[in-house]
């Protein structure tokens, strides 16, 4: 992706994050999982969130995706304050999340999984009276969706998901998110359960989503992957945001050093928006 002039010039519009967390606090009893964390996601970017185990990245993502409610702090979507009580609330606002656990229903087919919870009925009395689903229509749309994301290897939308490989299952989950998301896609360790080849497929998917202009939050442990696809990197440490850096200006080992606390980030390496750090060229 190339830098557009709009992104390069700091106008009020580009400075407005799509999704923003302001001073989010989340406590579980005495444990403070998130200690006043900020996060900004700008249009069209891939923001990676990295951090050691227990740094609070999963909790942060749960708050953004509606799986958990923050104890304090605000979540702003397009500058408007929103509260998510359930993942469904977040989905209704256009935020789709893909979880590391391959959250698909194995016995349903690809189309069934893509439309799970959002099934479409047939038109006419068969649909309204008998509540019959439009299987053909959903398979057709699923096919269009998969093709547009470049997942051409999956031809038969009536194929049960359990007969797919881990990478293909994750591709289905990502395609579901991409199909219904209007604002933000959150990917929580999408490659954690996958092999090398399959991880590549998912990374390619992330790039095709960015080409569509949808911003992505990518949570990952895998530094090479993060440095490959991310435009900016949010480093989480001990429940706080340690730094936001650009993969262009920081080395992988320095990023790990910030993550583990061995290095305090140098100010000029910090970036706070896409205008100061051009997105990676691909």
């Amino acid at each position, binding site marked *: 992706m190339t830098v557009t002039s709009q992104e390069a010039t700091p106008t009020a519009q580009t400075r407005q994050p799509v999704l923003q967390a302001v001073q989010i606090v989340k406590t579980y009893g005495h444990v403070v999982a998130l200690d006043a964390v900020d996060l900004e996601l700008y249009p069209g970017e891939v923001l990676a969130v990295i951090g050691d185990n227990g740094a609070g990245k999963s909790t942060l993502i749960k708050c953004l995706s509606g*799986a958990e409610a923050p104890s304090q702090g605000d979540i702003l979507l397009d500058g408007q304050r929103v509260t998510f009580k359930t*993942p*469904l609330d977040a*989905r209704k606002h256009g935020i789709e*999340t893909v*979880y590391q*656990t*391959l*959250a*698909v*229903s*194995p*016995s*349903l087919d690809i189309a*069934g*999984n893509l439309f*799970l*919870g*959002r*099934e479409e*009925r047939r038109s006419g009395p068969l649909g309204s009276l*008998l*509540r*019959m*689903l439009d*299987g053909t229509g959903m398979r057709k749309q699923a096919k269009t969706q998969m093709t547009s994301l470049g997942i051409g*290897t999956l031809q038969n939308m009536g194929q*049960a998901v*359990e*007969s*797919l*490989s*881990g*990478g*293909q299952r994750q591709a289905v989950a990502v395609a*579901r998110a991409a199909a219904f998301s209007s604002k933000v896609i959150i990917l929580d360790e999408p490659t954690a359960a*996958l*092999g090398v*080849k*399959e991880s590549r497929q998912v990374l390619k998917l992330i790039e095709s989503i960015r080409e569509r202009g949808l911003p992505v939050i990518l949570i990952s442990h895998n530094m090479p992957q993060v440095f490959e696809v991310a435009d900016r990197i949010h480093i989480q440490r001990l429940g706080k945001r340690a730094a936001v850096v650009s993969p262009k200006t920081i080395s992988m080992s320095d990023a790990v050093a910030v993550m583990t606390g061995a290095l305090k980030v140098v100010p000029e390496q910090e970036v706070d928006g896409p205008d100061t750090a051009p997105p990676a060229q691909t």
Partner: protein
Amino acid sequence: MSGTTAAPDDTHYDAAEEFLEARTPAQRVQTTLHRYPWLSPAVVLVISVIVFGLLNSKFATPNNLSLITQQVAVVGALAVGQTLIILTAGIDLSCGAIMVFSSMVMAKTAFDSGVPGPLALLLGILVGAGAGAVNGLLVTKVGLPPFIVTLGTLNIFVALTLLYATGRTIRDSELGTGLAWLGETFTIADVRITTGVVVMLIMYAVFAFVLRYTAWGRHVYAVGDDAEAARLAGIQVKRVLMSVYVTAGAIYALTGWILIGRVNAASPNSGIDANLDSITAVVIGGTSLFGGRGTVLGSLIGALIVGVFRNGLTLAGLDVYYQTLAVGILIIVAVSVDQWIRRARA
């Protein structure tokens, strides 16, 4: 995949393309059985009908086969509700008790209070749905395992039935109009068919459609498959579970109506062990006890297999103990086949 004997990790990553063109004949069978879980019981049913037909000339007569359907009507209808619950990875031990309780409510309101038959029937169905709701609430709100919940309510509903009926059977002459209707028969080409069997078949048709073609049906499978994945996909898992238990309760009550027609009376002591028979039918029918896989069609076939074995072994002059032995072996074989099919997918 490089070798013929691939390491498990290897299969996990590269299996997909291979599955499109299944590798060995055994795997092709496995894949097909997995896609159509009712297929293996259907084969067993056809073979057993042929074998029993060859053993005894009286077996394969239209009237004997019709008799078998009458014998399985109650367990078969009960198995519709049981299938729904097992598809959600639950189990219902209280189904027989709810059925008898509902049938007593129907008979007693018709007999004692003189409520017209259709109204008594409706009342019974409401009681059944309410009993299902009790199970559902305990499973979803209190979070108890379905096995424990229904083990408890099994005893509760048996006790309530006996207390309510004061141990008394209501006979045919005392039943309200409409309640014994399902015991009546009509003939098609000299074959006697009871209306109860027809009602059971209608129940199967309705729920086969609902499970296959409606969003609710898909959600039932998704919840049983992986409740967490379903929740993350935006399905309200507890609401689906609750609706399944209530629906199953109503189905049990309808089965109570079939029961009244079948025994031509409402007795607090009838059909108590029907719970295990219905689980047997569901399991032999290829529905997985782990949830998310199976069909109501399979359960109908499962119920018919048990009926065919019992009837066929009786005609063959074997002691009733051998029937029980055969059913036991069938269960073990059915679950083993299910495990074998599932292993291929792990």
